[in-house]
């Protein structure tokens, strides 16, 4: 079994200490608990759902560079887990990446590639190129055959000009003048297909991106809350967090709840922790 081979491989390489203590690992994934989780599944328990980003993410190329946009809702099944999360991730000062799919995967993959780009910048002494980020992302995602479920819109401006790419969970990529991903991608693409043209100005571009995201927010149930926009041009990046707030919380009662003293009954006994040896 794959699990057994892995553990004996580690024992052979002198890593027996790894099982005695949880020392920081060499990196990468660990499959220790897979056998146990399989057993739980067979007994009729369902494994949990992971937090997804539902999402509408978009990008477009305008006359001076690239504009990326995203909504801010994170869902856990049908419940909204985070009303104002950040889906536009930093990769390099001139490269940003929007992520859709499983939230942990998009965060981990973008953080990892961002660190690799930083190391590469130190080694080469040059500004990072968008195709470098693209190749690092696609080779990582392909090697996990789509199990790392991250769908990304990668955009940036480097010495060769502005670039916009989409990356799919299985590792395929596209290079496009405008792109949308996520559950709200059809709603956003409808706006882009009717209103996009080459050579938009900065303000027109921001307006179009906001409109596309709003279309996703209002028409797609997996997307919602606010609009985040990121404008990348040669030499300058502007991250407009919560550029638009089309869903303010207006129904809050100003009085709120006021609980009187002693409202909540206490047992009054001192708390004794169940494991005094700790």
């Amino acid at each position, binding site marked *: 079994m794959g699990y057994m081979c892995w553990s004996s491989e580690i024992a052979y390489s002198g890593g027996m200490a790894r099982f005695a*203590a*949880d020392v*920081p*690992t060499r990196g*990468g*994934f*660990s*499959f*220790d*608990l*897979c*056998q*146990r*989780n399989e057993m*739980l599944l067979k007994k*009729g*328990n*369902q*494994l*949990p759902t*992971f*937090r997804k980003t539902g999402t509408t993410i978009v990008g477009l190329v305008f006359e001076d560079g690239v504009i990326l946009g995203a909504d801010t809702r*994170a869902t*856990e099944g049908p*419940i*909204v*887990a*985070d009303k104002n*999360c950040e889906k536009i991730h930093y990769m390099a000062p001139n490269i940003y990446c929007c992520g859709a799919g*499983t*939230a*942990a*995967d998009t*965060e*981990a993959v973008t953080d990892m590639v961002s660190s690799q780009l930083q190391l590469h910048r130190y080694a080469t002494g040059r500004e990072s190129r968008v195709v470098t980020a693209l190749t690092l992302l696609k080779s990582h995602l392909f090697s996990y055959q789509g*199990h*790392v479920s991250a769908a990304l819109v990668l955009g940036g401006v480097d010495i060769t000009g502005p670039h916009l790419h989409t990356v799919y969970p299985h590792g395929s990529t596209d290079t496009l003048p405008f792109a949308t991903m996520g559950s709200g991608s059809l709603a956003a693409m409808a706006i882009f297909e009717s209103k996009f043209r080459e050579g938009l100005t900065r303000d027109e571009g921001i307006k179009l991106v906001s409109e596309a995201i709003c279309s996703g927010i209002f028409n797609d149930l997996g997307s919602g809350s606010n609009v985040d926009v990121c404008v990348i041009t040669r030499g300058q990046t502007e991250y407009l967090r919560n550029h638009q707030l089309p869903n303010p919380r207006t129904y809050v009662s100003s009085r*709120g*709840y006021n*609980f*009187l*003293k*002693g*409202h*909540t*009954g*206490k*047992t009054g*006994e001192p*708390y004794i*922790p*169940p*494991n005094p040896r700790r």
Partner: protein
Amino acid sequence: MSIFEYNGSAVVAMVGKNCFAIASDRRLGVNLQTIATDFQRIFKIHDKLYIGLSGLATDVQTLYQRLVFRHKLYQLREERDMKPQTFASLVSAVLYEKRFGPYLCMPVIAGLGEDDVPFICTMDCIGAKELAKDFVVSGTASESLYGACESMYKPNMVTYYFEALGLTHGKTMEQGANCIGVQKENQYKLLEEPEELFETISQALLSSVDRDCLSGWGGHVLLVTPTEVQERTLKSRMD
């Protein structure tokens, strides 16, 4: 039935004014049978950092032991405590490492960072962080907890009467009491004045677990301010 519903749990953390509160239920069950009513889900990492873990109880305990181990190593190397943001990144990395065979628990991390600014955060079982400014919830009762906290939460709730008067939180209880001219005998009475944060988090927790069969059987609330930590047990329906 989902694996999270095997043991049952409810954990919630709320931010107040220069303080935070973290609360959990106390039931440990095996499917529908209750086997313990004093199960600890909130653990101390250091004086100003607590972690609440919901989900499969065995993973709760294993994960807690692993994290305390990593924190102790950090303390030995760095000769100081971990900041809450750093600890949250550590927990996220430990969970994501097991991406394809995850620990079946969802942590709630609450701590006081630099300048005693409260920090709370929750994650799903593979480490996707959610940083919130108001409250975070996790466990089988999470859907009810979302609703209860959303309606009951107010910003800047306080824990002590003299904090409500706007006195600096750096004072001890005695100093604070002297400031408002209270006799020494009455100092301890001061602590029983309205404590908004405690009341709010307790009401949110109890009303949510009342609507969940798998959690409840009492509550355990920790209020953490820069000067002290209060642990209290809640009386609730025992069904």
